[in-house]
């Protein structure tokens, strides 16, 4: 089996340069590639276009890259409470493209599946449809949306093997699977890296063919955004 293992996040992102387009997995702070983000922050790569469902919070996730003004453009579906994001958006420093969450996910899938475009009804009749081709199938209008074209996809999985096969845990799967399939080069960081053969081939979510580099991440913080509990 082909060995995809690299030493760490620094090695994995060594050829990411200013001006590139990156996909980053995760939903809110759940399942984000913490190690890769830290490495991008440390290296201070600039003028990036980031495709990610959310933009992190002020002091974690993509928020750390925003703080250093590493982003030229953000493509997301929801950008929560993030004061620095707000400041950069209002000052015009940051370009922001908001698109429906399902459109975001499906444009990733389209890239991973070699489909140049998909049709979705999301956004028909709204400002999202402006400038887009509308097409009617069986009496219903759909927008044609194009596959993403990202230089790198940075994803986080729970387990991975040396062949690049990935298994996610619970709702941390979210965008990680579709982005792993979509990247021209996909870097996967995992909590547990195991030898090829240890994962059940029936349990694998993302086959290793989609992953070019894999490493075991360190010091996962896995911050919770909204801790909600019930009374015992």
């Amino acid at each position, binding site marked *: 089996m082909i060995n995809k293992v690299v030493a760490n996040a620094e090695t994995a992102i060594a050829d990411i340069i200013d001006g590139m387009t990156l996909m980053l997995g995760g939903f809110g702070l759940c399942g984000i590639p913490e190690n890769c983000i830290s490495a991008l922050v440390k290296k201070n790569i600039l003028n990036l276009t980031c495709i990610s469902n959310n933009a992190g919070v002020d002091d974690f996730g993509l928020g750390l890259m925003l703080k250093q003004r590493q982003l030229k453009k953000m493509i997301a579906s929801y950008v929560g409470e993030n004061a620095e994001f707000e400041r950069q958006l209002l000052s015009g420093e940051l370009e922001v493209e908001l698109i429906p969450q399902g459109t975001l996910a499906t444009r990733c899938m389209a890239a991973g599946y070699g489909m140049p475009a998909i049709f979705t009804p999301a956004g028909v009749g709204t400002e999202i449809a402006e400038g887009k081709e509308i097409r009617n199938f069986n009496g219903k209008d759909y927008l044609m949306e194009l596959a993403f074209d990202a230089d790198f996809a940075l994803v986080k999985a729970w387990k991975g093997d040396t062949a690049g096969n990935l298994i996610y845990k619970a*709702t941390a799967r979210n965008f990680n699977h579709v982005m792993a399939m979509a990247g021209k080069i996909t870097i996967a960081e995992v909590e547990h890296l195991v030898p090829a053969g240890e994962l059940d081939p029936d349990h694998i979510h993302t086959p290793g063919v989609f992953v070019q580099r894999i490493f075991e991440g360190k010091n996962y913080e896995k911050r919770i955004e909204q801790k909600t509990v*019930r009374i015992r």
Partner: protein
Amino acid sequence: MLDKNGIAQRIAKEIKDGYYVNLGIGIPTLVANFIPEKMSVVLQSENGLLGMGPFPYEGEEDPDLINAGKQTITTLKGSAFFDSAMSFGMIRAQKIDLTILGAMEVSENGDIANWKIPGKLVKGMGGAMDLVASAKNIIVAMQHVNKAGESKLLPKCSLPLTGVNCVKKIVTELAVLDVLPQGGFKLLERAPGVSVDEIKAATAGKLIIEGDIPEMDF
């Protein structure tokens, strides 16, 4: 007049046995508390879960297990995880029977606006545009009037739209109303202690009142 829990409780009556339901953030989330235990209802969370359970007990939160509102949750027996593309695939393919969400405005032809106020910071539409464009049945849970006292049930939405011709029913603190296919808000029920005149005064869009309007029954 109903409080938020009252609105949620009334909406819960619209849920039928065997339904797959997507609950939006805010009042819709509260609906889960009022689904009768004997009913088989599966809650979908669009970040990748079918079979959402209640919040975890203190100390049992799992950062890898959240709902679309980013709250820590649990799963029920028979639940399944999946990726975001499959999640919106099942939404688009109308496998979800009912979507309940909040709104800033609803128009008398069923348009909904709930994601953007021009001039104010825009947080994004999240999954709302996908949900309203695809759902078979959409119920809006909202206040009848906004903080400035203006009606949110309008002839035409003034805010940027989230979706068109999609809302089927509205439950507010004052009333339950159907959005008719040919247009217009048909008044179905009054909240306890609320008069038809109060509802008329709070509704800017075309209000259709036929016969006696009963009080809500819980």
